[in-house]
């Protein structure tokens, strides 16, 4: 199965963000934006590529909107009210609250420019009614198989990155985000997730920014200088986001400097927006959040609403006017009045779409701006470009990609040449596959998928014992803890009656197939001179005494290591291994040898399986020092690096000839495993 990623907008450009992801039969639309630079059909994503028949409800499982900027939500009312999509739509609470303001603002500008309106005021309201608001980290089950979750993205109030997961395959779509906190918002935050795909913005794909405080100071200085000289400051912004950020900045500065120059907000619109900000203050940075009880930071003291009559009134002032980029509306009107005067100041946002007045002012230092073929405005005022932006810089993008370590990365929302550089960097520095499809292009990736199988209790018990309880301090900040276990191979995958998969333990197999278990055993009868058992002083002809002495000898050497040797029915047993004194002179298992009367014979047998590597014979905790005493190093070669001097060796393999002992450390306790008894016998009889 594959993940398909169809880019309908913001492919190698900024504007009309819209990405359609298909995973395992689900289709998710991330963002539904419009392009500010166009007024023809190019302003909207080409929805016909989703469904030729126009049955969008069948073609799209859900829409997720990351934030209220028009390049991410501008086409939504069109898609729902005109194209007829009625399926689920998700966005955060602040986005749901603030989006209508943005859309209405945009609609008014459209109407004001005399363009045909794409949707009405009612359309906006009806569209918003279909939206389900979500909280950060809330798990939303869109349907049985599709789950989504929002994470804090900074950028603007309510901006979120979205995680979506279908049957174990996870993706993240970042929308616009900021990895460093600003005046009123915190930095983006996300869990470490298992991802097949990450789709990230790349507005500042190559820029590395320094501290923004210096830039803020610059801005304040420019504004202060202007009003001190009696000038007027025009700050064209969108109703939401930047306006509040700058306003917090100015309001605070006004307090500190005891300035009395009025700060105005154009139209009731932005004042209204402040009310939303007040209620939604929990979505801002901790510092701003903490002000709710004393004085809500969005209760601006020095801000008043602007009256048109004040346009040509004398005296200094600061005015926030919509729309940003001076693409029309009131900010354009104010621009016409104030631009010709030298003492005035116009601040421009960091990014202006081509074709807007803002863009013209940014390119070079124009003395004249053509509004249309009849109108030309003299520009004598000062221009200050705001260089702080709510987007992450290149380092932030790299940090995020590295942190999430997805299998694939798709770059959108940026400029092609810069994206190419970033793409190369992600590939070379992080070794992660990365691409930047153009609009209407589709790219495919392989996806993770899981098949679900029942697992028998015996299997789970055997592979997870000792039933690990993670130490408490470890779990606090660890979203996932991997426990590796090679006892996996004791599991057998079966398909019961051709239906559901089931995993059982190997011990359950024979019962399942209804057969009889057959053991293959080795027998081995050998002689040993009793003087080799040095510690036995009393020579006792009693067999039990001899076995007891053998036990004693073994316990002496291994007993305190926890080796369990049990004396039972005149023989020693360790798992399948059994040894007893052989009294049968005709013993069929006796091996050839130079036996004499001093030899006492031991008969032993053990399962062939115990001869195989990786088969548990017994486990005991062992320390390196003891290991060396047990198996003198001139006879045994130890492999694997590690700290030889240390008392604890995690993994040690000892080899002598063809015999091999594997000692492994399990979890925190040092357990060791040996492969087969005969090795052990050899070590001991030397």
């Amino acid at each position, binding site marked *: 199965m594959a993940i398909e990623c169809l880019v309908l907008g913001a492919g190698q450009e900024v504007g009309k963000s819209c990405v359609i992801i298909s995973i395992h039969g689900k289709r998710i639309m991330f963002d539904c934006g419009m392009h500010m630079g166009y007024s023809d059909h190019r302003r909207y994503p080409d929805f016909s590529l989703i469904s030729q028949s126009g049955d969008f409800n069948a073609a799209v499982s859900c829409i997720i909107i990351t934030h209220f900027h028009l390049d991410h939500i501008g086409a939504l009312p069109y898609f729902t009210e005109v194209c007829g999509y009625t399926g689920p739509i998700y966005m955060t609470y602040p986005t749901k609250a603030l989006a209508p303001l943005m859309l209405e603002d945009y609609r008014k500008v459209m109407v004001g420019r005399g363009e045909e309106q794409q949707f009405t005021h009612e359309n906006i309201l009806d569209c918003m009614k279909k939206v389900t608001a979500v909280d950060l980290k809330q798990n939303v089950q869109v349907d049985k198989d599709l789950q989504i979750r929002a994470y804090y993205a900074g950028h603007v109030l309510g901006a979120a990155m979205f995680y979506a997961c279908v049957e174990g395959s996870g993706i993240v779509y970042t929308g616009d985000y900021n990895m460093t906190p600003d005046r009123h918002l915190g930095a983006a935050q996300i869990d470490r997730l298992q991802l097949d795909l990450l789709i990230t913005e790349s507005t500042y794909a190559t820029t590395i920014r320094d501290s923004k405080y210096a830039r803020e100071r610059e801005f304040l200085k420019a504004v202060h200088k202007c009003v001190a000289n009696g000038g007027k400051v025009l700050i064209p912004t969108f109703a939401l986001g930047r306006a509040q950020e700058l306003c917090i900045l100015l309001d605070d500065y006004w307090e500190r400097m005891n300035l009395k120059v009025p700060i105005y907000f154009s139209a009731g619109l932005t004042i209204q927006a402040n009310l939303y900000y007040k209620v939604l203050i929990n979505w801002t940075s901790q510092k701003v959040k903490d002000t709710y009880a004393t004085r809500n930071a969005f209760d601006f003291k020095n801000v008043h609403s602007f009256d048109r009559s004040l346009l040509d009134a004398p005296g200094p002032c600061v005015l926030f006017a919509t729309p940003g980029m001076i693409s029309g509306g009131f900010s354009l009107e104010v621009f016409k009045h104030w631009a010709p005067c030298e003492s005035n100041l116009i601040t421009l946002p960091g990014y202006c779409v081509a074709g807007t007045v803002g863009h013209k002012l940014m390119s070079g230092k124009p003395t004249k701006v053509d509004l249309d073929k009849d109108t030309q405005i003299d520009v004598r005022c000062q221009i200050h470009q705001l260089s702080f932006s709510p987007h992450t810089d290149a380092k932030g993008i790299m940090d995020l990609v590295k942190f999430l370590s997805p299998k694939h990365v798709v770059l959108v929302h940026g400029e092609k040449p810069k994206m190419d550089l970033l793409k190369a960097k992600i590939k070379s520095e992080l070794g992660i596959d990365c691409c930047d499809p153009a609009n209407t292009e589709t790219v495919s990736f392989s996806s993770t998928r899981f098949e679900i199988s029942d*697992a028998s209790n015996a299997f789970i018990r055997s592979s997870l014992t000792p039933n690990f309880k993670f130490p408490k301090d470890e779990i606090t900040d660890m979203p996932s803890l*991997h426990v590796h276990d090679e006892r996996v191979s004791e599991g057998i995958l079966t398909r019961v009656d051709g239906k559901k998969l089931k995993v059982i333990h190997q011990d359950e197999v024979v019962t399942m197939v209804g057969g009889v278990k057959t053991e293959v055993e080795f027998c081995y009868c050998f002689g040993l001179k009793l003087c080799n058992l040095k510690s036995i002083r009393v020579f006792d002809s009693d067999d039990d005494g001899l076995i007891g002495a053998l036990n004693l000898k073994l316990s002496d050497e291994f007993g305190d290591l926890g080796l369990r040797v049990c004396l039972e029915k005149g023989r020693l047993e360790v798992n399948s291994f059994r040894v007893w004194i052989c009294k049968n002179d005709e013993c069929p298992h006796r091996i050839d040898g130079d036996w004499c009367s001093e030899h006492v014979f031991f008969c032993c047998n053990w399962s062939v399986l115990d001869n195989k590597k990786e088969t548990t014979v017994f486990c005991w905790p062992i320390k390196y020092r003891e290991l060396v005493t047990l198996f003198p190093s001139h006879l045994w070669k130890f492999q694997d690096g590690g700290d030889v001097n240390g008392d604890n060796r995690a993994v040690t393999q000892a080899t002598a000839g063809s015999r091999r002992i594997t000692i492994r450390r399990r979890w925190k306790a040092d357990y060791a495993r040996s492969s087969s008894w005969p090795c052990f016998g050899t070590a001991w009889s030397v």
Partner: protein
Amino acid sequence: MKFTSLGQGGGYNLPACHMLKLSGFHILLDCPLDLSALTIFSPISCTSLYDEEEEMVDLISLEPYYKTVEGVQLWNVSLIDVVLISSPMGMLGLPFLTRTKGFSAKIYATEATTRLSEFMMKDLVAMHMEFKQRYGPHKNSFFEFFNWEKLESLPPSLKDILLGKDSTQLGSWMPLYSAGDVKECLQKVESVVYAQETCYNGSLIIKAFSSGLEIGACNWSLKSPKRNISYISRSIFTSGVAMDFDLHALIGTDVLIYSDFSNSENGSNQELEGDDDDDDLLLDCENERCEEMEKLKFICLCCMDSVKSGGSVLIPSGRLSIVLQLLELLALHLDSSDLKVPIFIISSVAEELLAYTCIIPEWLCKDRQDKMYSGKPVFDYEELIKEKKIHVFPTLDSRELLMMWQEPCIVICPHWSLRLGPAVHLLKRWHSDPNSLLVLEEGVDTDLALLPFKPLSMKVLECSFTSGIKLEKVPQLLKMLQPKQILVPDYAKPFLEPLSNSLPCLFYTESEPLCLPKSKNLCELHISSNVASKLKNKEMRMSRLKGQLYVEHGKHYLVEGKKAKGLEIGPLVHWGKVDLESLLVGLEKIGVKGSNECGSNVVNVVDPGKGLIELKETSVVISVGDESLALLISNLVHSLLNGI
């Protein structure tokens, strides 16, 4: 799974408290404080007020102690792994636990619950401090005061509260925690939002879903590898403030622990039938909501009557969602009656609390959220405070309050036990005024609560608000939730037992552990499809697992191993039979010479080494001195058997 109810609670202010043992973890559900027990103490300076009637007031004149849940005190705190808090009231006893040595459990509560209980605890500590200051250095401590003689001489109403029904609960009384204890406790709480997935210890998935009882209050869903459990605390389908009861997330669990029988005394003899469909259930809820509104309106009307006749109104309520609605309604009524009567809210935390409720639209009901979307404030009182119709003060002796004090007035203040806080002083002031009104919530023994203020000429309005799902709706709700097993308190037995064929109920009794047999559910193993396809390709019914097993978020995963193991492990389990003939043929093929004495099941090996092979009923014995020959023969034998 083991379940022990430690306290079945009572009403809104005293949530139930249980201990649940699930897949080896001890989970404490809520940790409340029985504040109604405060009524056994005499409020400050009442004795001096009623000197001449000393024998009437036989309350305990001590600095108050606080009654915790006995069962929690008896528990070894270091054994508790997880604490789940369902409502702000369910956290009031938590600082007692968290300050105990050895406490290391992880505490989960919703963000709003944590903040609201922070306010409640801070207020409690402040009121207690005030009591202490006025009372002076205490003469007697609680336990010094009580000897057996004294205990025996207490009136039964006090003795019951003090010692509990079974006279064992003296040990559950504690001196109040400090502000520092509260702070420390809150730092240990891990806050979640509704439907956020948190994972305890890699295997237990915990989620909170709104219960509708109060802002931030929740029910819990617990997912262990083998069992899904939902815990329903007190819930309200639709409240005018908190987010609605979210029941869809609790559908279809293995075990439902139902701990919400609020109004069991009324309606227990009602005829029940569970055939109604869901729509009716929700329609009824709408009616219920209307009933609640009617109750609130009635209270407002009573208040209007009092203030019109020159009396003041005292509302000592701790129920935030009720108070918030009442504030709006009272202001409306005052406006429409054209009365200029001030509303005072007096509490050390009121200002911050009100500001807080204005910035948490995510936790509120749909109507309030819609108000936010349409650009209006979620609660009207923000405006009312600005318009100086509502005044908020931290204490009764705030200077500004004294300056603008006027009567009649309406005062909303703590504490509903009538033993602490501004309510005590105001009652002393108004108790003999027949025009004044006291609005009391159910939950305390009214006679006892009002005892120190007698004789009482003031009017008393007792009201009860919904604090849970009505009994007659429980069967319908339970059917909708379709759990495989339901745990319900024993007092619901007469009511639910007749329905046992459709509702699989088990009844629990306070402090009697209830054990559920091990779940028969199988664990699920998520095998990544590339591993699965490799395993399945072999055209075999069975194949040995390979890869890496890990547990994440309570799920078992098998994915491709990082590096392939060097050597293939051969089959480890064998079944079937080896027949002599094929063994001999096989030996010949591998160049081993052996002979079989006719009739025996033994093969003597002669070349390249000596040895023998014996075929037994369930085993094959190979006895060869040379190791490599032994392995050669064993491989042959294995090949003649079925193996995996």
